């Protein structure tokens, strides 16, 4: 076995590999750029080598620099993680030339699977199901109809030079095929000056399901079942699970066996992933093969009990696989949620900055539940602009899918993350979405269910009551503490009442709180009562409560007259008032937030570089209004609609915060 390996990566995956290497008694070498000087993977590794400035193309993906680090530290093998150099055949070749083992597949496999057309051809030859289609030139509409009939409807008619949906038609019948061919051709000619058209099967209700394979250098290959990764946003995976709620045993077997056939066809030896697109009738078609460890590999590990990184290292060391296909079982259900530094309320705009608070839920593993969090960050660390915005991969496992989802909901509630915008509330919303919980998902889930972006979650009355009861009980604790201040008038102390009115999400609940040594019984006006228990004290940012025995974990902040409570993707202002306060509060005028539709707001903290318009000027939709420099990038802000500029509040050189008003329109 190797004595020392270098991890040619950063972030969570570098940390992940280090963990397994350490378990196996292998020393580790980290590499780091200037931006990662204080990074977690540097701290965790036995040695660390600085390899250059922050941009990856000057550090992590510069083969020479990585080779130097290998030479300097005497590492015998390199784990590339994912991304960066992981699928770069030149890197694998350089390693081979230097007599250093690449913990990954042979160069040939990387090369042949790295090319879309070649890989599809090899897959077809290996008997792998591919999307039926006709790649040749199509002469006229008649031929298009004939081909469409051969493929079977529905079909997608596409411009060869196409992109962005232009020159693309879906046809469900001969007429539509005829019509679609003509309009695609015209559009393609106009848009791209190239009217070549091809036709392929249109996959309805597509799901992204992939097979994990593991092969050794001795000709053994097994599949470790599938992962479903249909919850994606713009091709970026967000939620993954294993197994898929959709596959049946025969489909799984067919997909697994075809994947192994492909792996064998290219002489694969390592962990790899064969991605498929699966339609509503469980027809599956090959997409591509990833010749590396996938981001979402933990869900496979959780249901199979196989440490994929360990297997990769052993295979690279020339060992034959110690497990056979029969050993591979599906044990329970695992879900992964990817936490991104992207603000879901701002159309998932990347957010960078300091993690002022980062407290993931405790990792645990019992018979009935596992919580695993793969991360490369720490409280006080920085999310930089240079790399992938992924903060952590939170995984849960339980015997059933429903339990795994429930574990995930609580783990998300417990995950404390402050200082940057992040997608925790969005993930919580997905975990509660009926289509997700029923497993009725496609790759269009996010686009279809959140067509106008994410606006937060509205809780139902039962959920609101649980929070209201907890808030009333918590408020009582805080108010009683306030009465214990020094300097009180003896015998005239304040008595904290039992009756409170809790208002949240536009609802109001009059409650009465009866506290005892173990908690509080909170009774509502209609006579229903909830038992609240938990050891929350003022200042705690996480309230770990139970309501009628069921866990309720809330992030708690202080606002005037109450709490800010975040739970299950909802972000609530919860006011707890005495009945009299509540009565008088009715006179307060609800101040509507200013109408921002006629304003240009600064979308990110940044510096105004240039203002392109003047007061009184009429602007057209799409016209450039000003330029904001943020994250060292110049962002041009454009008019959303036609209008006349009525006021400009910022000038070049001003540094603005998020939501500062740059200009207003009439």
């Amino acid at each position, binding site marked *: 076995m190797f004595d020392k390996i270098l991890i040619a990566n950063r972030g969570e995956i570098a940390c992940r590999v280090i963990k397994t290497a350490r378990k196996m008694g292998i020393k580790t070498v980290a590499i780091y750029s200037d931006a990662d*000087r*204080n990074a977690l993977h540097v701290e965790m590794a036995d040695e660390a080598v600085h390899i250059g400035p922050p941009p990856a193309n000057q550090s992590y993906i510069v083969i020479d620099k990585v080779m130097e680090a290998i030479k300097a530290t005497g590492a015998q093998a390199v784990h590339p993680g994912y991304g960066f150099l992981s699928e770069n055949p030149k890197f694998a070749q350089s390693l081979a030339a230097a007599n250093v083992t690449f913990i990954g597949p042979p160069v040939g496999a990387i090369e042949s699977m790295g090319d879309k057309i070649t890989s599809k051809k090899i897959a077809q030859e290996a008997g792998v199901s591919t999307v039926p289609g006709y790649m040749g030139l199509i002469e006229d509409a008649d031929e298009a109809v004939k081909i469409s009939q051969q493929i079977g409807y529905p079909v997608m008619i596409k411009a060869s030079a196409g992109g962005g949906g232009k020159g693309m038609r879906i046809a469900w019948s001969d007429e539509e095929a005829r019509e679609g061919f003509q309009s695609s051709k015209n559009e393609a000619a106009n848009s791209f000056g190239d009217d070549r058209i091809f036709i392929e099967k249109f996959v309805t209700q597509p799901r992204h399901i992939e097979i994990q394979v593991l092969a050794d250098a001795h000709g053994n290959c097994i599949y470790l079942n599938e992962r479903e990764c249909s919850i994606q946003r713009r091709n970026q995976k967000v939620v993954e699970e294993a197994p898929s709620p959709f596959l049946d045993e025969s489909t799984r077997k067919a997909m697994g066996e075809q994947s192994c056939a492909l792996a064998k066809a290219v002489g694969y030896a390592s962990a790899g992933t064969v991605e498929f697109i699966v339609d509503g009738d469980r027809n599956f078609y090959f997409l591509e093969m990833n010749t590396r460890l996938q981001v979402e590999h933990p869900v496979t590990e959780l249901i199979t009990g196989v440490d994929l990184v360990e297997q990769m290292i052993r295979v690279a060391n020339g060992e034959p696989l110690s497990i056979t296909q029969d050993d591979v079982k599906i044990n329970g259900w695992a879900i992964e949620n990817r936490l991104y530094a992207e603000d879901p309320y701002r159309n998932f705009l990347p957010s960078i900055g*300091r*993690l*002022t*608070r980062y407290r993931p839920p405790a990792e645990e593993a019992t018979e009935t539940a596992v919580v695993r969090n793969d991360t490369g960050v*720490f*409280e*006080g*660390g*920085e999310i930089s602009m240079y790399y992938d915005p992924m903060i952590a991969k939170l995984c849960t496992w339980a015997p059933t899918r429903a339990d795994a989802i429930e574990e995930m909901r609580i783990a998300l509630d417990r995950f404390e993350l402050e200082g940057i915008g992040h997608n925790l509330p969005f993930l919580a919303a997905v975990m509660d979405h009926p289509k997700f919980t029923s497993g009725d998902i496609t790759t269009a889930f996010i686009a279809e269910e959140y067509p106008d972006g994410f606006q937060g979650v509205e809780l139902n009355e039962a959920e609101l009551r649980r929070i209201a009861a907890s808030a009333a009980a918590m408020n009582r604790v805080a108010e009683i*503490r*306030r*009465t*214990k*201040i*020094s*300097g*009180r*008038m003896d015998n*005239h*102390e*304040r008595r904290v*009442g039992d009756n409170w009115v809790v208002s949240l999400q536009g609802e109001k609940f009059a409650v009465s709180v009866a506290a005892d040594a173990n908690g509080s019984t909170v009774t509502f006006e209609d006579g229903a009562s909830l038992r609240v228990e938990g050891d929350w*004290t*003022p*200042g*705690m*940012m996480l309230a770990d409560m139970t309501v009628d025995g069921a866990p309720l974990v809330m992030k708690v902040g*202080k606002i*005037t*007259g109450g709490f800010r409570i975040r739970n299950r993707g909802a972000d609530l202002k919860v006011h707890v*008032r*005495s009945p*009299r*306060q509540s009565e*008088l*509060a009715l*006179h*307060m*005028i609800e*101040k509507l937030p200013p109408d921002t539709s006629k304003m240009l707001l600064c979308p990110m903290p940044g510096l105004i570089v240039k203002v392109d318009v003047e007061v009184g000027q009429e602007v057209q939709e799409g016209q450039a209004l000003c330029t904001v420099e943020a994250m060292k990038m110049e962002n041009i802000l454009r008019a959303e609609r036609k209008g006349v500029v009525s006021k400009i509040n910022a000038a070049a050189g001003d540094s603005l915060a998020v939501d500062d008003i740059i200009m207003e329109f009439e």
Partner: protein
Amino acid sequence: MKDILQELEDRRGMARLGGGQKRIDAQHSKGKLTARERIELLLDEGSFEEFDMFVAHRCTDFGMENQRPAGDGVVTGWGTINGRMVYVFSQDFTVLGGSVSATHAQKICKIMDMAVENGAPVIGLNDSGGARIQEGVDSLAGYGEVFKRNIQASGVVPQISVIMGPCAGGAVYSPAMTDFIFMVKDSSYMFVTGPDVVKTVTNEVVTAEELGGASTHTKKSSVADGAFENEVEALSEVRRLVDFLPLNNRDKAPVRPFFDEPGRVEASLDTLVPDNPNTPYDMKELITKLADEGDFYEIQEEFAKNIITGFVRLEGQTVGVVANQPMVLAGCLDIDSARKAARFVRFCDAFEIPLLTLIDVPGFLPGKSQEYDGIIKHGAKLLFAYGEATVPKVTVITRKAYGGAYVVMSSKHLRGDFNYAWPTAEIAVMGAKGATEIIHRADLGDSDKIAQHTADYEDRFANPFVAAERGFVDEVIQPRSTRKRVARAFASLRNKKAQNPWKKHDNIPL
């Protein structure tokens, strides 16, 4: 007997109705509460004891003799906030527009006198159309009496003003002399001369809101210390502030039970100061991570943001915090920030509230406008305030402490009790680049040499150890253990006794 008791109740009922239901409804429709409702929200439930409910004015001019409402437009008395005594007056806009008559003023004076005698804060809820014109000079005399008591009470008991409606003309000067002024957004304004007069005199057209609304006074003029969304929130926040304040100048800062570990380690503070000395960071993160339960009551949040002032608790006891904010103007001192901090420091010193100073200051803001407007005298206010303060003073230098600004900010030389520095501290006359260009003027043409000299200067002075060698810094501490070190420092200073020489009063450069 029963009839007599009934008459009392009837009279009380009349008095409580103030200006009548119609006016009360009008007040409510503007999102405003009545004088008595406000008191209910300010004080502990059922704790209000009223004075002078039946006082009526004595004016007989302009038909006023026919209009003598009980209470005369102001409700006064005392009650408790979380069991601690406070005096309160609350002007009643529904009664003669809350206008100030001689008797109205007398009622206010009565509770102010009692507050000073009994050592309890005075809270004024202002909602008044101004002087009662029918009374003429009697009304002005009334104001004068109130002003005098504001001055007498200053530094004896905390005085808090909440502006909940109009406050114009001479009336503004009573709140102006209190310790804190809070406003309610969109429904309160303060100015010496209103929009009409402004238009007549200067031809300037301006709305009341622009001239003296909450935004103007919290962001531009710094007259107000804070503004709140509505009256319910404003009164709730005043209760919260009172929990931080001692009742009078002989009292210690209050203590209440706390749910936070004094020795709590915050590892993330080790990375608060960025590697690049010119990169800003948010000093509020340090404040909230030091404070008990992360609770920080900021004063003048919207004004001179390059310095932060406010109250926290350490081990349950109130501490005043002054901190440079590197996020704004690099945290430098200028006229506004020096004035803001000086006033806060003097409040804390007057009321025995210990002071915590967090320093990252690159110096004073240079420039013509600063010099023309008198940065010398304004900067001296802060220097003076720190120098004369005898309360416990603990200081942490997180990064830059350059030049005169270093001395000003609660340095050892100004009787700082504990002066800590983080390892990232740089205590020097100025930044390395500037210093090098002066010391090595001859080498200015040679960029290599200058770079070398700069590096040498950085090695020598861009650290806390030169100051530590001289004892100007008592100890260099780990950022992560700052809360523990600071809390222990204050604990050790609980019996501190320091005095200034006898004087009638000092002559701070106003």
